[in-house]
């Protein structure tokens, strides 16, 4: 017994090292699934305040670009609004229609931290549960799709960027209605891949890729990017490179999408799944 203790004592540094590495490993694994604790990330109050102060200072240097971007977006929205008004005067709404036209609500938020060069990228924004941001909500920018909310604190949230190896977005090619899945291979922060496209379809460079709306997170038709290169490889699969419309290094303002009908869709789908299991 004494010798056992002597042995343990003489290797205490190594054993302690193994213990600490085990804790770190456990943290990594735990952080990788979505139920990690809200304290240990950048939506934490203290970390977020430091990041916010930093972005307050940096913001002055990008005011010009942000203004230009907002003017462009205003023009686009004004044009869309005029078309919608004309449509409305032509057709009268039914009750269920009015609920569906208000299905998605947008919450504007400022980006206080963003990365695009790491293997898995996250974004911190300055809206949290108090501004009715919830986990799993979609996040878009004026240019296109950005990501999905991972964790919320009262005043801040962290967002999993599209540039993350576990982010898959159900998407389609705009005019041709060809479905696929968007995923990132971890290399170039401007390029993502469109996967699972059957090879009997023809995809060409210049096609526009948008969200398909097959899940309750994003509405249909949010811009993702433009096909840059499409070719069939030796395993008879399409390899499609898509140039992202969102430039993550320039991200300043984003919108969080609140889907009002999401609880209804989720419970209906769950009920259907349970029904087929039986």
């Amino acid at each position, binding site marked *: 017994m004494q010798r056992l203790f002597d042995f343990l004592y003489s290797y205490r*540094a190594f054993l302690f*090292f193994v213990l600490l590495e085990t804790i770190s490993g*456990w*943290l*990594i*694994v735990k952080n990788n699934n979505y139920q990690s604790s809200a304290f240990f990330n950048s939506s934490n109050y203290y970390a977020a305040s430091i990041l916010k102060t930093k972005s307050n200072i940096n913001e002055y240097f990008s005011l010009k670009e942000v203004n230009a971007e907002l003017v462009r977006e205003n023009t686009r929205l004004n044009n869309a609004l005029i078309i919608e008004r004309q449509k409305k005067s032509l057709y009268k709404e039914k009750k269920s229609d009015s609920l569906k036209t208000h299905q998605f609500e947008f919450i504007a938020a400022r980006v206080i*931290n963003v990365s695009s060069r*790491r*293997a898995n990228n996250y974004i911190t924004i300055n809206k949290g549960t108090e501004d009715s941001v919830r986990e799993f909500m979609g996040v878009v920018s004026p240019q296109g799709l950005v990501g999905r909310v991972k964790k919320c604190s009262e005043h801040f949230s962290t967002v999993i960027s599209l540039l993350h*190896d576990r982010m898959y977005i159900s998407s389609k090619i705009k005019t041709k209605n060809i479905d696929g899945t968007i995923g990132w291979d971890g290399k170039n922060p401007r390029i993502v891949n469109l996967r699972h496209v059957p090879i009997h379809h023809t995809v060409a460079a210049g096609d526009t890729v948008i969200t398909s709306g097959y899940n309750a997170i994003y509405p249909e038709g949010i811009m993702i990017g433009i096909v840059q290169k499409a070719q069939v490889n030796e395993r008879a699969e399409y390899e499609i490179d898509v140039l992202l419309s969102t430039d993550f290094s320039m991200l300043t303002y984003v919108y969080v999408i609140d889907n009002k009908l999401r609880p209804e869709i989720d419970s209906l789908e769950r009920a259907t799944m349970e029904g087929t299991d039986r």
Partner: protein
Amino acid sequence: MKPKDLVISLVYFLIFGALQILLFFNMALFGYAFCYIYLGFLLILPIDTPKLLMMLIGMGTGLIIDIFYDTLGIHTAACVLIAFLRPHIINILTPRGGYDTGSQISLSSLGFQWVATYATLLILIHHLVLFFLESWGFHIFFFTLLKAICSTLFTLTVFLLSQYLFYSPRGYK
């Protein structure tokens, strides 16, 4: 470790931490080279820091950096490894005649060659572990390796420059 060393170490922690979060946070030279200068704090802790305390400090540092980067556990794992390996590497690199008691890791007391070798070894190990943990596997091996090596050069340069800034050539007392 004397109380004076503790205060000095705390000041270095704040300096290196602030550099990391405020200046080098998302900086990527050429899209490949990152600078994890906070590592400098672990590198210049006094030589006679007890092993177990060293590992606890490493863990704490990694955890704080992880909170900012949203990569819980990755920096922690790499820093604990560095804290564990550091005494062994210091042993291997012992200059002729051994270390003076209570000596600092600095250019003035150990010379450029010693500090450069020591820093290169530890920074390289740290960055390799960090980038492979981050990409979670070896599926983009050469891309990750390239990133790790470029980042090592970047961090090393900034670390050595910081040493010239912090220490006067006449020696630090």
